[in-house]
């Protein structure tokens, strides 16, 4: 496999509804932005693309990827569509990585979108629930927020995680998003705001849950030679990993924890894993990506993380899958202040627990505050991570508050179903 570099990205402003633009035009806007950022790259040099969108039901159009391809003027070059629920964008990113790493392409465009405003919110929830087993799970009350509520209820039971700790995740991500003009719902919240907002599925309130969105994002990945030629500040993709689990969370085993290099069996003597409290596929994805990137202790070796916080609870669960803290410590990790930005005032007091160094998680605002146009989401994370590593947050967001001073290595994490497909990719500054 050859080294693969990211040289550009683009995002549309995520919004509840963009009825004035169809999916082709949204992708075109993100694409034009990305192309303008690498003036040396011509459309002719793009060898092909991968397109990600989650739901044929939302799009009301099969082969929508081919329509984006022709709209961008990329026909008759190669393209394909990638789909894997909430992880669609992350899978698309890795599929484009494969195209370049294998030598099949020198320049590959990863492009994703979702237009979720075309049905009402509750029909949208029904569409999303069709990504659970339609014979056995969906008919019982198919509702993803209900599934996640059951998962976190068990996490609370196993580990003592609290709704206040979950609320702090919402506070963090919404506050970060106040400095991100691409975000759909920036806000300054309190624990009381989160807990008093409408209950959706106990214990999750509406502010524990991301919103549906219209939006698009693109990423341009290239070989080392093209990175040299086209870009002053390319970012290397140093690790990719993917994991899966049973579609029905009822079918998940209760076995042993697969350990990361910095963990030992004694850490989890009595833990039955993953059950429904954790995401085994996330652990698998992280393990593979860490091995490829040479990461031994993620909380030390990473400078920031953009993870799939469709729920405040799943952000806490994901800290543990990624090995940022041990299983069961996710709530304390939040309380410590480790995943918060140093330069923002969240109106919270932190314990400052010294077990964990600072590791900003979702400095962009994540899904909770940026929105979640499913097929675009995993690519949106890659774009924010890319700008962060380039040091160009100020230029792209018009506000450099979210720019981390020493961002050398970041992690992006994309997640589907109740942990059914999960991807982890590692991006690093420079490296040529």
């Amino acid at each position, binding site marked *: 496999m050859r080294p693969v570099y990211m040289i550009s990205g683009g995002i549309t402003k995520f919004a509840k509804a963009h009825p004035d633009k169809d999916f082709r035009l949204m992708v075109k806007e993100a694409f034009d932005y990305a192309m303008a950022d690498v003036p040396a790259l011509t459309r002719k040099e793009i060898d092909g693309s991968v397109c990600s969108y989650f739901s044929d039901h939302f799009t009301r159009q099969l082969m929508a990827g081919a329509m984006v391809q022709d709209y961008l003027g990329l026909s008759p070059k190669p393209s394909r569509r990638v789909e894997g629920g909430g992880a669609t964008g992350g899978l698309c990113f890795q599929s484009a990585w494969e195209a370049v790493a294998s030598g099949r392409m020198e320049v590959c465009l990863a492009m994703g979108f979702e237009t979720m405003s075309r049905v009402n919110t509750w029909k949208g929830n029904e569409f999303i629930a069709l990504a659970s087993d339609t014979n056995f799970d969906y008919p019982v009350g198919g509702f993803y927020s209900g599934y996640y509520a059951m998962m976190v209820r068990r996490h609370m039971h196993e580990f003592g995680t609290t709704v206040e700790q979950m609320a702090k995740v919402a506070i963090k991500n919404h506050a970060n998003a106040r400095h991100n003009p691409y975000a759909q719902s920036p806000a300054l919240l309190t624990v009381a705001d989160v807990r008093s907002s409408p209950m959706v599925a106990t214990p999750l309130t509406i502010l524990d849950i991301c919103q549906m969105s219209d939006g698009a994002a693109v990423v341009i990945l290239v070989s080392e030679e093209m990175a040299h030629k086209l870009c002053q500040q390319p970012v290397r993709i140093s690790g990719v990993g993917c994991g899966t689990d049973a579609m029905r969370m*009822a079918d998940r085993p209760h076995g042993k924890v697969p350990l990361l290099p910095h963990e030992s069996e004694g850490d989890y003597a009595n833990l039955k894993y993953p059950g429904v409290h954790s995401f085994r596929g996330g652990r698998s994805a992280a393990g593979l990506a860490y091995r490829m990137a040479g990461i031994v202790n993620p909380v030390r070796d990473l400078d920031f993380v953009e993870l799939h916080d469709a729920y405040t609870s799943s952000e806490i669960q994901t800290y543990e899958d990624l090995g940022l803290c041990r299983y069961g410590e996710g709530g304390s990790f939040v309380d410590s202040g480790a995943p918060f930005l140093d330069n923002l005032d969240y109106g919270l007091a932190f314990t400052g627990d010294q077990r964990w160094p600072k590791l900003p998680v979702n400095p962009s605002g994540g899904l909770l505050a940026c929105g979640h146009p499913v097929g675009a989401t995993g690519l949106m994370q890659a774009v924010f991570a890319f700008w962060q590593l380039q040091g160009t947050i100020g230029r792209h967001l018009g506000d450099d508050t979210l720019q981390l001073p020493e961002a050398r290595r970041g992690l992006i994490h994309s997640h589907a179903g109740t942990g059914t497909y999960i991807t982890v990719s590692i991006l690093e500054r420079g490296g040529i």
Partner: protein
Amino acid sequence: MNKHAKLPETDEGTVLFNVDPIIVKYHYEIDYLHSYAQDSPFFAGLAAKKLLGSRCTACGYSYATPRGHCMECGAATEWFELPLQGRIHTYTTCHFGGEAFLKETLFTLILVEFDGVDTLFLSRLVGAEPDEATIGMQVKARFLRNSKFKPTDIYFVPV
């Protein structure tokens, strides 16, 4: 050849929500000929007031759901009758839901654990207020008298 050919006009209109951009109502509906295939005995079991799980014929792993082949070893499974009493492994009360289930809110979802069975079963808890459900609570199965051949033919109530 008829140069005065005309399509007939109809009085069916279009539901219009907006003109700039134009947003119209688009209706979509379909009836499938859906087969439960190898999982059919599970649904037949519910009609006979039996809850069937799957046990691996090679490694003995037992599933509280229909699963023709074992996730652990790949061997074929056989049906076995699950106990009709278990415990709540986890739960939630849904105040909202997908459109099809909105009219049923509030409803409580539970994952049921059974003694000696390796995995869980998703169902609804009926007969308990939302704040009465707890992890570890004993529940027993009830069946609809008139089967609909859906997983909701079974539900659980407090013991």
